[in-house]
């Protein structure tokens, strides 16, 4: 019997953590129970992007999307939808149409998707990443076939150059140019490396591509190998991405069995093999030279450049290193042409960019937008703004190497150069939204804490300097900071920037410098008034009860874990003993009359 329905269940890391694997099993068993197993196929697929509403399930050809599905909902979906043809409305993904104010279920009318353009993510949520045939059905490996059959290596490089593709891992270096450098080296052993060491806190673009469409990366690596004259590739990926690693292994095995990797690919003279190298999850190993050291089995520490990897990389041989998302763009460029790709985006940044939206945002998830989309569109139209009608404060881009952007920057079109001009950077694509409840000093402290952990220790400014910066930030948060502290921080931050060897150290002070510049008032409030305006830094807070508002109900005293609140029910208003108060805020939550205040 012919399959008539495909049930696609998201099997990305986010949805898997909310039991999508159990959901798949339940679907399979109910489908069998209702004797539908020959006509209904249940498939695990990659990330749909709307992680906030996961687990997400798509049913085709009906184009029905279900969200927040639990294992308990599966029976109803099978009986009602698959057996009787009645979609389960209560679980359907919907949005409110802005004009008619009516509920819409059509995926193209849902604002989260309407402004997106999927190139790198085009197969995520569409194919089964563990089935090479499904990738081939989407013209997979056709770009490699085209390159081998009808293009010279130089033509491939020229096409990538012409497309304007720039590295998606952070720096934005032109990909074609990088390939050209390596291709220009004398013939001999060369290597292609895929950098999947995604380390920015809150970033999961590369993981999702590898989980949802691993073959696109393998195909692109083979194309790169053909372009520069390499016959061996490494995927350097962190061991803490188990699902991505497993799907990559499956994909490599399938590609080899089809002869799409290995000797004499598609009858040509081109050989190419790919190996996986697992990293232990050190942030610094995302830096090219440290990554190479780690692949070679040495401790992951950066080396001075030049020589650049394109001249002398892994095992001292010419090597190109590209990021996962960069590779994911390559096959499409060869198939649809450089002109098509360069028609998307801004003058100097072509194509799209994937962002991982996180923090104080309604639609946490993965979005892919054409370059030139404004931050406002991403945060408000796609992301749905800050939850609970809180005020937007800033958005942090570029991870620990980037900086903050504020309300004033929201209408800036996103591209590599604009973000740098505003004092942040594109980075790999993490986008953390902060609202009025986030203390900016605390955020800077979070990133510095991360850097202190991740500094490899090779250079003193980074190893010792970031530690001192963190101590100063702690002083500010805990009320010991002075104006001199702020001055010292700025001074030290600039010195670390100027004297570190690698990108990690050179950019480590960025979160501090960027927030000091944009939110100086908030730092001043901490060191001069000894107050935290967002109410985050506990040492600077005091809780008190407004006597006039107190109804003497005793609720606050009952909730207080330290017995710091005293009074007599119905007779004497309650007061907080500041010496016993641990500033947990339980009294404030308990009070029904807004009598407890925090200043």
């Amino acid at each position, binding site marked *: 019997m012919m399959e008539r329905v495909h049930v696609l269940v998201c099997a990305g890391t986010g949805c898997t953590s909310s039991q999508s694997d159990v959901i798949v099993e339940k679907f399979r068993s109910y489908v069998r129970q209702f004797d539908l197993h020959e*006509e209904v196929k249940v498939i695990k697929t990659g990330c749909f992007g709307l992680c906030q509403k996961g687990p997400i399930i798509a049913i085709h050809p009906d184009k029905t999307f279900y969200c927040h599905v639990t294992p308990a909902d599966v029976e109803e979906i099978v009986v009602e939808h698959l057996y*009787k043809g009645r979609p389960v409305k209560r679980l359907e993904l919907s949005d409110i149409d802005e004009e008619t104010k009516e509920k819409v279920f059509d995926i193209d009318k849902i604002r989260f998707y309407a402004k997106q353009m999927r190139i790198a993510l085009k197969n995520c949520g*569409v194919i089964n990443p563990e089935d090479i*045939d499904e990738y081939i*059905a989407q013209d*997979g490996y056709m770009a490699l076939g085209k390159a081998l059959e009808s293009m010279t290596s130089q033509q491939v490089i020229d096409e990538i150059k012409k497309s304007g593709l720039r590295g998606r891992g952070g720096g934005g270096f032109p990909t074609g140019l990088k390939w050209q450098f390596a291709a220009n080296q004398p013939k001999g052993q060369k290597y292609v490396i895929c950098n999947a060491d995604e380390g920015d806190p809150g970033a999961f673009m590369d993981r999702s591509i590898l989980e949802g469409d691993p073959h696109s990366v393998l195909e692109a690596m083979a194309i790169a190998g053909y372009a520069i004259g390499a016959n061996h590739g490494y995927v350097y990926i962190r061991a803490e991405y188990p699902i991505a690693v497993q799907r990559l292994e499956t994909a490599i095995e399938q590609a080899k069995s*089809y002869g799409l990797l290995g000797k004499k690919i*598609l009858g040509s003279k081109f050989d190419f093999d790919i190996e996986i190298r697992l990293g232990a999850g050190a942030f610094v190993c995302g830096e090219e030279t440290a990554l190479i050291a780690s692949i070679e089995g040495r401790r992951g520490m950066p080396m001075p450049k030049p020589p650049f990897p394109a001249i002398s990389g892994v095992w001292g041989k010419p090597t190109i290193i590209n990021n996962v998302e960069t590779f994911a763009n390559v096959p499409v460029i060869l198939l649809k042409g450089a002109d098509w790709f360069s028609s998307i985006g801004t003058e100097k940044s072509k194509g799209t960019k994937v962002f991982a939206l996180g923090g104080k945002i309604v639609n946490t998830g993965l979005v892919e937008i054409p370059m030139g989309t404004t931050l406002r569109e991403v945060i408000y139209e796609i992301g749905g703004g800050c939850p609970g009608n809180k005020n937007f404060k800033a958005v942090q881009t570029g991870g620990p190497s980037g900086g903050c952007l504020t309300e004033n920057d929201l209408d800036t079109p996103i591209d590599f150069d604009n973000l740098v001009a505003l004092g942040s950077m594109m980075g790999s694509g993490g986008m953390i939204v902060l609202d009025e409840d986030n203390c900016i000093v605390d955020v800077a402290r979070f990133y510095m804490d991360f850097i202190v952990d991740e500094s490899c220790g090779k250079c003193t400014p980074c190893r010792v300097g970031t530690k001192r910066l963190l101590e100063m930030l702690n002083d500010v948060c805990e009320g010991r900071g002075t104006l001199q502290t702020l001055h010292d921080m700025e001074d030290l931050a600039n010195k670390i920037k100027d004297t570190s060897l690698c990108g990690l150290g050179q950019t480590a002070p960025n979160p501090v410098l960027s927030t000091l510049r944009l939110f100086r008032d908030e730092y001043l409030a901490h060191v001069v008034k000894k107050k935290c305006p967002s109410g985050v830094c506990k040492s600077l807070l005091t809780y008190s009860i407004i006597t006039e508002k107190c109804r003497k109900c005793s609720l606050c005293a009952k909730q207080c874990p330290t017995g710091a609140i005293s009074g007599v029910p119905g007779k004497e208003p309650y007061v907080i003993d500041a010496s016993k108060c641990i500033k947990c805020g339980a009294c404030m939550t308990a009070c029904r009359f807004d009598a407890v205040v925090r200043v």
Partner: protein
Amino acid sequence: MKSLSDLQRIRDEAKKRVSMREGNQEYRIVVGMATCGIAAGARPVLTTLVEEAAKNNYPVTVTQTGCIGMCTLEPIVEVFGPQGDKTTYVLVDSRKAVEILEEHIGKGKVKTEYTVGASGVAL
């Protein structure tokens, strides 16, 4: 796999198996699959439509829906054309389903004698 044409052959085969995920076919065929439809034999009609459409590469999406409302005339099959025009076929069985595909989708001619208008039921 030894050549690009091998790859193309695998692609063409694989495409057929996933085409339903693309939606946007020229015609959309909807089969009523509520209790009344299933009792009257809608399931074999549905599977016949799916199989025949795939076998002949007809540009159709076959889906199911709930009760269409005229339970005595089930199984009911609705065909939505490229311009959104709707034809309702009633009392369909597997044989009629094949004919509807051949005539309506294959040749673009409505199979009038199987439509609700020809059923003699006063509406």
